[in-house]
């Protein structure tokens, strides 16, 4: 089994609903984005256009982050997810340096309030227990939702169904059929990490 995601950039409208769904589900603190939508401008008026590129952990088959981690805090699971063991992480941030996709996030202060001076909300109090100060964390395809048979929060939130998620090793899965039909490509293939997040552009 290898979980993967295909993102159709032609469909993405840059609404950031996935960004908000991710933050809400994972309870990340202010300034931390396990996924984000990069907005690129190209061309000049009147032929200028926006291009939206959702970025998240690419769950690489040969993850540069796991290779450089000095303490094996980042490991590749059998289901393809690149998992971070927060209890092992020493916070050296070498994985962030090594990641070609700039998607790992350093939790400098995971107890920061969204509304400074107002104290933590009940939701923040619950969710912040999942994070550890001084460690690096990232998207894990919502492992907790997958355990319940649910797709990642970003996938189910997208209003234009720009993302297709599933098992890339199953030839009958929707994602495998989409890969066969549309030949989506990874970002920065020259990095040699063989990502499980592919893009239709």
């Amino acid at each position: 089994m290898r979980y993967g995601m295909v993102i159709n950039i032609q469909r993405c409208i840059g609404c950031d609903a996935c960004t908000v769904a991710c933050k809400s589900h994972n309870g990340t603190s202010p300034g931390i984005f396990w996924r984000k939508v990069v907005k690129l401008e190209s061309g000049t008026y009147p032929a200028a256009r926006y291009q939206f590129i959702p970025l998240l952990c690419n769950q690489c088959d040969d993850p540069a982050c796991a290779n450089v981690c000095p303490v094996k805090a980042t490991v590749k699971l059998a289901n393809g997810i690149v998992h971070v063991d927060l209890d092992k992480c020493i916070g050296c941030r070498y994985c962030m340096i090594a990641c070609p996709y700039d998607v790992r996030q350093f939790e400098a202060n995971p107890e920061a309030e969204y509304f400074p001076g107002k104290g933590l909300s009940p939701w923040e109090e619950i969710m912040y227990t999942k994070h550890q100060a001084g460690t690096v964390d990232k998207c894990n395809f919502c492992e907790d939702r997958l355990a319940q048979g649910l797709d990642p929060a970003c996938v189910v939130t997208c209003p234009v169904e720009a993302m297709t998620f599933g098992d890339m090793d199953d030839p009958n899965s929707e994602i495998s059929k989409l890969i066969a039909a549309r030949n989506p490509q990874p970002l920065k293939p020259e990095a040699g990490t063989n990502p499980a997040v592919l893009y239709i552009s």
Partner: protein
Amino acid sequence: MTTATKARTSPVMLPGLIGLAALVVLGIIAWGYQLSQGMSVLGIGQAVVWGVYIAAFFTLAGLASGLVIIAALGDLLDITGIKENRRAILIGALATYVASGIMILMDIGRPLRVLNMVISSNMISPFMWDFLALALSVILAAIYLFSGSRNRWLPVLAGFVAALVIIMEGWILSMSAGGVLWRTGIMPALFLIEGLMAGAAVLLIAKPEHAATDWLRKALMILIPIVVLLNVFEIATVLYNGDPDAQVATRLYLKDWIFWASVVLGIVVPIALLLWGGKTRTTHIITGILVVLGVFLAKYVILVAGQAQPYMLAPVDYTPTLPEIGGVIGISALAGLLFLLGLRLIPSKES
């Protein structure tokens, strides 16, 4: 050396110790503030995750290794003024290695978990290679310090492992898939030359005998142009035929005023002083300080600029905060303090 002997009896030793100790206390306060408030008090963020602490670590570890290599060369090439001062040079190297290790502890988010480096080692990580090389270099430098050059293989081995420390640091960056500016085989070579430059510069400041001064001046006159050439080769190659991301990163690098400060302060002025500044004590002190400062700035700018991501296409946003600056000053002072204490406390067992 004269440096060792003088340091034991010098009337300026005590004020020097007190001044350095005060700066070390400043560093401890800065680190304490960082530990109590969290790493959000540092200038690092999600874009630039390695800042001035890592630049200082690279500089200090490079300097320490450069000192070990020069001490080894002094014995192997029979360089007057270097071999006689082996003890002081190696004490300086050990003091600087210790300081560089503490610098890394200050940089990591979970310093109490550093033992995971031992109990859960990932041997394919360049970070781990550097950790092992540094630990081995400290051990070899200490053995070299206490046993002298009776065994001719010892300076060879100590110098080789010290060189490996610097090479590993270059590899930490050049083997990183994320840094388009660093993915070049020149990085380890550049770091190696800069480490030797820093070592030679510090020794020039330390007022060795005349013969050693001449050797160090010649060494700098050779090493500085090599650094220039390596940079020119790399930049010209990337700008002419590099991949687009590397070209963007290189242009950002060249636009950074700190890059040009490192060129002027660490290359142009020192070369001018070496050529036309005479052989006065003042010239040597200024040259040495500028070379070390230039090496530090060069490491800082290539480290920070190299973290520009192609998706952002914007200058990286990083300014060191007061706790970071205090920490770097404190750790640098710690190297000096340990050096002076080492000169006084470590018995001389020269062969």
